[in-house]
C-alpha cells in the first residue's frame, strides 16, 4: 500500500530527558512539552467531509487509493466480525469478543504497519489479525477452544492474542528493543483497551519504551468500557493520550471512528519509531457496539440510546460518504468489495463448521523443549485410557460429562 503520510507536521518533536544526574536543578532548557489536543484529531467528520485546520493536528488526509483500500479492509472486517458473532451464537465458538464499531481504530492502525513489523494484539483484535493476512480458522482456533493459539506467530509477525490485560505491551517493548539492538529497523505495534491502561503493566510498558526509546507504537482503543465499567471509573485524565506526558513520550488523542486519522497518525508514529524517534502513545476514541463477549449482557450497564448514538457515528459509513462524494467508490468496486467480504464470511462459516481434529496426547508435547520423564508417564496413562475407551467403543464425550 503506497502511502503519503503526515510525518513531520505533527507535534511530535523530540522530548529530551532533562535529567542527567547531578545537574538537574541548574537546567534551564526550553520547555518543549505539550499536552495532547483535547479535541480528538480528525481528518474526516461524521458527515464524510474532509476536516481542515487545527483539528487535523497537522496530519494530511491519505490519498484516495489508500482510503479505498482502508474501506475495503473495514468492510471485510465488519462482515467477518458479524459472521463470527453469529457462529458464536450458534455455539460454534466458546467465546468471541467483537470489535463491531471499532473497525476504523483496528484497521486504520494495523494497516499502517508493514509486514516486517510485529503486532501484539489482544483478544479484541481479531479483525486486525484478519487484515494482517491470518486465516480465519487460525485466528479463531483459540476462541473455538482447539488450542490456546492457532497461528504461526513468526510467519505473521503477530503475537498471540493476549488475555491478561496489558501484559502484551511489555512483550512489544522487549521485542522492539531487541530489534533495535540488532539494528533491525522494525517496529512493534500493540493494542490495548481503555481498561487495560489502569494495569501496572501498561505503565511499565510505557515507561520502559520511553526510557529505552524503543520503536514501539501503543494504540489504546478507548471503546469507553471495560466490560461493564465506563471510562469515568477508569481514569480522571482529560484524555488517555495525556498519559504520554508522564513518560516524556508523544501522545495523540484521535477520533477512533475516523479511519483516515487513525491511519495517518499511526503511520507517522511508526515512521518516527522506525527512524529512531522512540515510542508514541495513540488513543483512538471509539465505542464497542456489541456486548463485551457473547456471555455479557450490556443492558445491565448502558442505555440503548448510547449505543444508538454511536451507531450513527459508524466508521465505515463515514468513509463511504466521503468516497462516494469524491466519486472514488464506483458501484462495481463496491460490489466487488461486498463480494470479497461475503467470500471471507463463507470461508469462515465453512472452517468453523468443520470440526478440527485435536489429539489429546498433544497436551504433553509442548510444555518443555525436551519431554520430562514424569510427564511422559502421565502421557502414557492418558494414552492407555484413550486406547481402552476406543476399544470399549466409549467416546471422549463420556469423559467430558464426568469431568464437568
Amino acid at each position, binding site marked *: 500500500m503506497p502511502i503519503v503520510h503526515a510525518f513531520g507536521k505533527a507535534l511530535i518533536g523530540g522530548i529530551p530527558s532533562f535529567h542527567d544526574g547531578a545537574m538537574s536543578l541548574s537546567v534551564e532548557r526550553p520547555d518543549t512539552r505539550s499536552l495532547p489536543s483535547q479535541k480528538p484529531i480528525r481528518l474526516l467528520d461524521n458527515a464524510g467531509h474532509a476536516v481542515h485546520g487545527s483539528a487535523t493536528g497537522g496530519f494530511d488526509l491519505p490519498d484516495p487509493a489508500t482510503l479505498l483500500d482502508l474501506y475495503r479492509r473495514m468492510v471485510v472486517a465488519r462482515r467477518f466480525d458479524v459472521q463470527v458473532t453469529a457462529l458464536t451464537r450458534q455455539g460454534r465458538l466458546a467465546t468471541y469478543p467483537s470489535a463491531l464499531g471499532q473497525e476504523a481504530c483496528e484497521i486504520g492502525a494495523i494497516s499502517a504497519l508493514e509486514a516486517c513489523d510485529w503486532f501484539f494484539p489482544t483478544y479484541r483484535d481479531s479483525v486486525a489479525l484478519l487484515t494482517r493476512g491470518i486465516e480465519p480458522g487460525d485466528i479463531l482456533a483459540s476462541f473455538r*477452544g482447539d488450542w490456546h493459539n492457532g497461528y504461526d506467530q513468526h510467519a505473521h509477525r503477530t503475537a498471540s492474542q493476549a488475555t*491478561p490485560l496489558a501484559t502484551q505491551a511489555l512483550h512489544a517493548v522487549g521485542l522492539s528493543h531487541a530489534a533495535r539492538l540488532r539494528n533491525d529497523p522494525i517496529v512493534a505495534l500493540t493494542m490495548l483497551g481503555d481498561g487495560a491502561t489502569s494495569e*501496572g503493566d501498561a505503565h511499565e510498558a510505557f515507561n520502559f519504551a520511553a526510557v529505552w526509546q524503543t520503536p514501539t507504537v501503543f494504540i489504546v482503543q478507548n471503546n469507553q468500557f471495560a466490560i461493564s465499567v465506563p471510562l469515568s471509573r477508569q481514569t480522571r485524565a482529560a484524555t488517555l493520550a495525556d498519559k504520554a506526558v508522564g513518560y516524556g513520550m508523544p501522545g495523540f488523542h484521535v477520533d477512533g471512528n475516523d479511519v483516515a486519522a487513525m491511519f495517518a497518525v499511526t503511520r507517522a508514529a511508526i515512521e518516527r519509531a522506525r527512524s529512531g524517534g522512540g515510542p508514541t502513545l495513540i488513543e483512538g476514541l471509539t465505542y464497542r457496539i456489541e456486548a463485551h463477549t457473547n456471555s455479557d449482557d450490556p443492558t445491565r*450497564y448502558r442505555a440503548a440510546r448510547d449505543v444508538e448514538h454511536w451507531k450513527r457515528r459508524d466508521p465505515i459509513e463515514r468513509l463511504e460518504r466521503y468516497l462516494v462524494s469524491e466519486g472514488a467508490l464506483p458501484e462495481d468496486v463496491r460490489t466487488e468489495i461486498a463480494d470479497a467480504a461475503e467470500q471471507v464470511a463463507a470461508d469462515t462459516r465453512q472452517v468453523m463448521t468443520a470440526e478440527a481434529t485435536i489429539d489429546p496426547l498433544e*497436551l504433553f508435547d509442548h*510444555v518443555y523443549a525436551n519431554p520430562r520423564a514424569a510427564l511422559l508417564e502421565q502421557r502414557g496413562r492418558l494414552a492407555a485410557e484413550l486406547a481402552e475407551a476406543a476399544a470399549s467403543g466409549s467416546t471422549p464425550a463420556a469423559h467430558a460429562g464426568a469431568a*464437568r
Partner: protein
Amino acid sequence: MSATRTDARPEPAASAPATLTMAGALNAALRDAMAADDRVVVYGEDVGPLGGVFRVTDGLQSTFGEDRIWDSPLAESGIVGTAIGMAMYGMRPVVEMQFDAFSYPAFEQMVSHVAKMRNRTKGRMPLPMVVRIPCAGAIGGVEHHSDSSEAYWTATPGLTVVMPSNPADAYSMLREAIESEDPVVFMEPKSRYWAKDALELPVRTAPMDRAVVVREGADVTLLAYGPTVRTALEAADAAVAEGLSIEVVDLRSLSPFDDETVSASVRKTSRAAVIHEAAQFGGYGAEVAARVTERNFHHLAAPVLRITGFDIPYPSPKLEEFHLPTPDRVLAALATWEWDLA
C-alpha cells in the same frame, strides 16, 4: 480512628427453605453481611451494575449504594492494595479477583502485605479482609480462565485459604470469612456456581476451619475440596457396585488443614487419596499427601494417592475433559493400589 460498626443489625429471621445456587448463596451471604455490618464494603471489576461476571454481586449496588459496593479501576494490585488500606482503617473490604489468573498481578500485595501485616506489627494491625477468587476450571473457558491458584496461597504463611463445595457452605463460610479478624482467600469453584441446594438462610454449617466427612465409608478416604467433592461423591457411588466403600472428606479449609478430622478418617480406612484439578507437581495435594503420611504412616496400607490434573498448563476448552480428574479416573487410580498389602 477506625471505622466503627454503626449499623449492626440483628440477623434476619431464617427464611423458608428455597432452592439456591452457590452463586445465589454467595450473593445472599454478601447481602446479609453488608446488612449486618456497615464496615463491610465490596469492590472489584464489574461488581457494580453488572453484578459480577458470575452474578455473585447481582443487585447489591441497588440495595446498598455506591459507597458500599462499587466498580474499581481495572488493576488487581490496586484492588488488593487499597483493600489493605481500607482494612487498616477498620473497614472490612471484600474484593473480587475476576479469575484465578487475574489475581496474579496482586501477588506481591497478597504475599508481602496481606499475609504479613498482622505478624509484622505483632498483632497491632490486623487485616480483616476477604479476597474472593472464582477458581478452577471445567467451564469451557479460554486460556487464563481456568487456573487453580490455591497452591500459591497455601504456601504463604499468614493467609487463610478456604473453598466451599456447595451452596450451604458457600453462604456460611463467606459469612465467617467476612467476620474473621484475619485476611481470608475465599476461593469459589466456578464450575459449582450453578449447583443447587434447598437452603434456609441464614444457614451456619461447620466452622470454616474444619473438614467434614460428607460420606462415610470403610475402605478408603477420598480427600477432596471445591469442585472435586462432587467427583469424589460420584466415584463413591460408582464404587458401591464394585464392592468398595469410600469415605469422602470435604476439606473446606485448605489452610489451616484439619489434621484431626482427616487423620481420624484415614486411620479408620488406612488408605487415602487426594483429588484436585490443579497440576500434581507442587500442587496442594503434595501437602495433603505429605502431612497425612507424616501423621499416619504406620496406619497406611498404601501411599497416599494424588489424583489430579496433569503437569501441564490448563488446556483449551476442547481438551480440558482429558485433563481433569473424573470419577472413572479416581476409580482407576484406586485400582492400582496393592490392596492385598492392607
